[in-house]
């Protein structure tokens, strides 16, 4: 079976990590074209979301003063609207905004005004900063999924930094894509995945701004949080938010999302209770 499957594998760097793409079962050309489009999308999103590239939109936003509206393109506007919604749905535990003066503490109020009609965003304080680090990989994966669809690629596996995964179709040897990962001390879990997305948050995966949620913090479990979802952006958001959420918060937050599976360490969280 393996001899004529046109197995494609390439890798590139972006958003400070490595993107790896495996595809098979489609023509060599289409697979290469799709990979090139994913790379272009990565470059495009990095130009929007980077905090470090002085030519990037977010870099520009971070350097603005208060009450100075910034004009947004559709993609960035929609991303801002989306992340603000996620902040509400996660009770503030996922938040791309923070105050540079006091980046360790959470803030209670909205820090920006977004006007979807004028397509602008305005900071309410000059110290407002934004960091899409906790969601950027999910946004890119969502775009990559569209590109795989457009190019009619049925079997693929994308790993972004080893912690954000998309897989579709089947493994070249048949059956699910199998993954091994160590979720906590000494415990390895094997997951068999078809057509889904995975995001893993653990101490070794910096996910941008993870704010401490005060007293509610779980007595440190040191456990990773793994989210399996049809929506790669929500998988990212939740793996960040649930990593710092208390047990009660986890359940409250999960009511707002449609998720396939949540693992806290190696334990599967029972959903919809």
């Amino acid at each position, binding site marked *: 079976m393996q001899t004529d499957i046109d197995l494609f594998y390439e890798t590139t760097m972006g958003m400070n990590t490595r993107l790896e793409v495996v595809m098979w079962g489609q023509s060599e050309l289409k697979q290469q074209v799709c990979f090139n489009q994913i790379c272009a999308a990565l470059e495009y999103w990095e130009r929007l979301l980077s905090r470090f590239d002085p030519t990037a939109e977010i870099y520009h936003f971070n350097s603005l003063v208060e009450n100075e509206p910034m004009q947004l393109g559709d993609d960035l506007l929609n991303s801002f609207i989306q992340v603000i919604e996620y902040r509400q749905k996660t009770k503030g535990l996922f938040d791309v905004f923070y105050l540079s003066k006091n980046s360790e503490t959470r803030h209670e109020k909205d820090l920006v005004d977004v006007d979807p009609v004028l397509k602008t965003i305005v900071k309410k304080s000059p110290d407002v900063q934004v960091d899409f680090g906790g969601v950027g990989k999910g946004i890119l994966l969502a775009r990559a999924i569209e590109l795989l669809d457009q190019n009619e690629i049925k079997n693929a596996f994308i790993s972004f930094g*080893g912690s954000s995964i998309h897989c579709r179709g089947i493994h070249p040897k048949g059956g699910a894509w199998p993954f091994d990962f160590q*979720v906590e*001390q000494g415990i390895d879990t094997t997951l068999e995945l078809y057509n889904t997305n995975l995001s893993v948050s653990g101490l070794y995966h910096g996910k941008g701004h993870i704010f401490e949620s005060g007293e509610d913090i779980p007595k440190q479990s040191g456990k990773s949080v793994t989210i399996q979802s049809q929506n790669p952006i929500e998988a990212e958001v939740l793996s960040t938010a649930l990593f710092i959420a208390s047990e009660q918060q986890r359940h409250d937050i999960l009511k707002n999302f449609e998720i396939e599976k949540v693992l806290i360490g190696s334990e599967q969280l029972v959903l919809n209770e």
Partner: protein
Amino acid sequence: MSNNRRDFIKTSIVAGTGLALGLSSFQSWGGVFGKKVRLAVIGTGGRGRFLMEHLLNQMSNNDTYELVAICDNYQPSMDAAKKICNKYKITPKTFDDYKKLMADAPVDGVIIATPLYQHAHITIDCLNAGIHVLCEKSMARTLSDAKAMYDASIKSGSILIIGHQRMFNKKYLNGIERIHAGEFGPVGQVKAYWHRNKDWRRPIPEGKPELERQLNWRLYKEYSAGLLTELMSHQIQVSNWAFQNTPVSVQASGGIQFWKDGREVPDNLAAIFTYADGSRCIADYMNMNRNYGVEEHIIADYATLRMETNKLQWDKPNQTVNGPMKTPVSKMVDDIKKGEKKPAAIGGASWRPETAKKTKEESIYEGQKGDGTVEELLTFVEFIKTKSAPDWMLREGYNASLWTLLTEKAIDTGKTVTCPKKYMI
């Protein structure tokens, strides 16, 4: 810019052996063929005399330059310098004021090794008078002085290079050239430190306490930024060079923790530089423990280079040079090609203690003797002969000085500091 840099690297690796020079330059300069490059040393303290010794020592193999004048305004330094001249049987003119030297001793180039706060005006006066300058690091005590030195070189057309000798050291040149060629993959971090266990003081002659600030200028903020300008400037130069970029910001903290002897500069400090692509340089300095010594670790995807100790370690021991890096995903692809289905080890945090990996060490480059100072001096002579120097070299010195002084600001204000536009070049 990187092309210029590469060209220079190639030239510089052979410079000092004489191979880099076209025959024509030998014909017009030196020995029986014509005039020699006339050099002077201004500031014959510790470093100035070290440079003098090297210059004089090399003259037995190279008769294209001569030391025609020396200048110092502190008699003991001048006396010590004269002793060296006697040893090499030369009698350069001596001055206690560089302006007199400029007036009375025609020179083609000067080597300035005065304390930091005495760099800018001497350099600028020389450049404007058409004298080429090798000025010791760090460039200047203030941002505006450093910029004025840079501008003076551009405007006058006189050569200015700053004495970061690693730029002339074949071990560094070789390592950096391979980094730029991508042999080790993208560089994510530079980790630099310089730890010493001494008070960093010069002895004060008995009965002359008034000389404290003059001799121990390194310890007072009026004259120096201490460990930042004197040590870190070298390492941020290496970092910028490796990244082929300058930082976008610096965060730092420092203070006087141990040597509470009246000094004003920190004896314990740490800085983090962020570059535009998110890579970072982490640098720390202390004067109370030498266990770590001095090092710059250049940490790339596939290898770590320890520049000071000439060590190269591949992160993937089985990987061939230039070969692709093995990741869990690429291993899975290899398995598929072998017709096997094995899980890809991905995701999840590893909770085992992640102690340093032990991999085989190789040398970055064999055959560099010394730290690059001799090559720096001889290259300066060559630059004077050809009346040109690659412009990246001054930029390297300027940017090192700039970010060194911005680090001082970061420590003093406790803020993340970026570079004001007017100092960007």
